[in-house]
């Protein structure tokens, strides 16, 4: 007798599956807040009050938006630069041989060192942070796009080539759809990294943004405030990941799904 097909979970069940770990985490934190001083584990009520305060004050919320803007600007800069470099490396092996060691060298430099260099090299806050965000994400984007280009199916490339496309049509019909899944993965990975780097950059080299606000909370030993500001960044990462997941769900519906999972 054939096994009954596995039913997908209901919306309610999926919501429970997503929320359950967070509820558990919150519960553990709340228990800790009953047993430790407030400056170590403030109650979730205090943290929530801070979060509401941030959301209800334009001055404070604009600090969140400033950080989000910096992350996105830096990532877009790194992605555009990385994609161009990857395309050159893919097309010309001499460029690949020349640039790959440089990019590897850049990857070895810690983000904090770039923060120091940026403070020395640039005067304004925004150029500093844009530079830091771009330079720390660019090598990863370059290698990820390069791998995606190299991973294109030779059979499919040959098939499209047999139709004698123009460069633009080759890009539109073959290259972009082929590398799009890898590009989304690259964004997911780099988004997480960038959200960590931006805090360091703002902590040291900015007079505003979430990183700067965290520094303020640290100076007054306000753990609830520190947590509330941190959560702003986590919310941003979660929302962006959801948006990317939604795009994946829509764009990759062509993929076959096996009933039996690994």
């Amino acid at each position, binding site marked *: 007798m054939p096994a009954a097909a596995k039913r997908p979970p209901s919306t309610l069940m999926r919501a429970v599956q997503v929320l359950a770990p967070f509820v558990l985490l919150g519960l553990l934190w709340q228990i800790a807040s009953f047993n430790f001083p407030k400056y170590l584990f403030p109650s979730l009520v205090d943290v929530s009050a801070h979060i509401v305060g941030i959301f209800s004050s334009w001055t404070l919320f604009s600090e969140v938006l400033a950080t989000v803007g910096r992350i996105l600007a830096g990532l877009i800069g790194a992605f555009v630069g990385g994609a161009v470099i990857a395309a050159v490396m893919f097309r010309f092996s001499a460029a690949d041989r020349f640039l790959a060691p440089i990019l590897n060298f850049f990857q070895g430099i810690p983000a904090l060192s770039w923060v120091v260099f940026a403070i020395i090299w640039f005067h304004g806050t925004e150029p500093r942070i844009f530079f830091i965000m771009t330079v720390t994400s660019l090598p990863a984007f370059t290698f990820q796009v390069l791998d995606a280009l190299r991973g294109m199916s030779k059979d499919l490339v040959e098939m499209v080539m047999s*139709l004698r496309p123009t460069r633009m049509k080759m890009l539109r019909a073959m290259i972009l*759809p082929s590398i799009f899944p890898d590009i989304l993965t690259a964004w997911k990975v780099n988004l997480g990294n960038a959200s960590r780097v931006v805090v360091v950059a703002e902590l040291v080299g900015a007079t505003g943004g979430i990183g700067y606000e965290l520094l303020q909370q640290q100076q007054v030993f306000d753990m609830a405030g520190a947590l509330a500001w941190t959560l702003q960044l986590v919310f941003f990462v979660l929302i962006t990941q959801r948006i990317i997941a939604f795009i994946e769900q829509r764009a*990759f519906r062509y993929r076959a799904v096996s009933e039996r999972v690994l």
Partner: protein
Amino acid sequence: MTQDAEIHFDRVSKSFPARDEDAEPFRAVDGLSLDIARGEMVALLGKTGCGKSTTFNLIAGLIEPSEGVVRVQGLDPFRDFNDLRGKIAVVFQNDRLLPWRTAIGNVELGLEMLDKSTLVRREMAQFWLARLGLAGHESDFPHALSGGMRQRVSIARAFATDASILLCDEPFSSLDEITGQRLREEFANLVRENGKTAVFITHSINEALQIGRRVIVMTRPAKVAYDVRLGADARTGADEIRSRIQEVLAA
């Protein structure tokens, strides 16, 4: 070169560099000369690894000959690559459908390269899908189609561009016998009805005799060992031709 040669090879050789630097380059095609006239259905027959696919890629302009001259409709298919746009259609051994496109999207691909309007593309693609028995499957993605259906989509893609030359690289070899046989017949009819010049690569004598009106047997490295035109009735002398082909292949 004969007056009406659609495809012309003159002492063509193709070598590939060996992986090991000290080794000799691999010679896949060696001094191949042949002419294929407009409207001919030619089966290129040979054992696996005899250079049939290299010959195929030379005609398609995907690789450049190391020596000799290749001409397709009087043009160099490698150097005049873009000038032959829409004139050569290819059906590969496996379907090579773009997984992110639906069946109709895949058939429209070649028409997109020819700058056809959306309306024309849709009409042509629908016509060819229906012609190949795939009406109702226009919106299916390749993974939802069977092997035979996918190969039909790839044949529809080749015919939709209305190219005068069809290159086929063992397109039915991965299908089961019944599906392969049915598709082979349909394909041969379509080629005849549409007056195409077809070059059909195969390693099967039966397939070559069924599809080709001319059979060229190649030996390794790709060189013409036997070239025979079949009569109006393909069965005339078929047994003798089959024996001769078997002898050449066994040699």
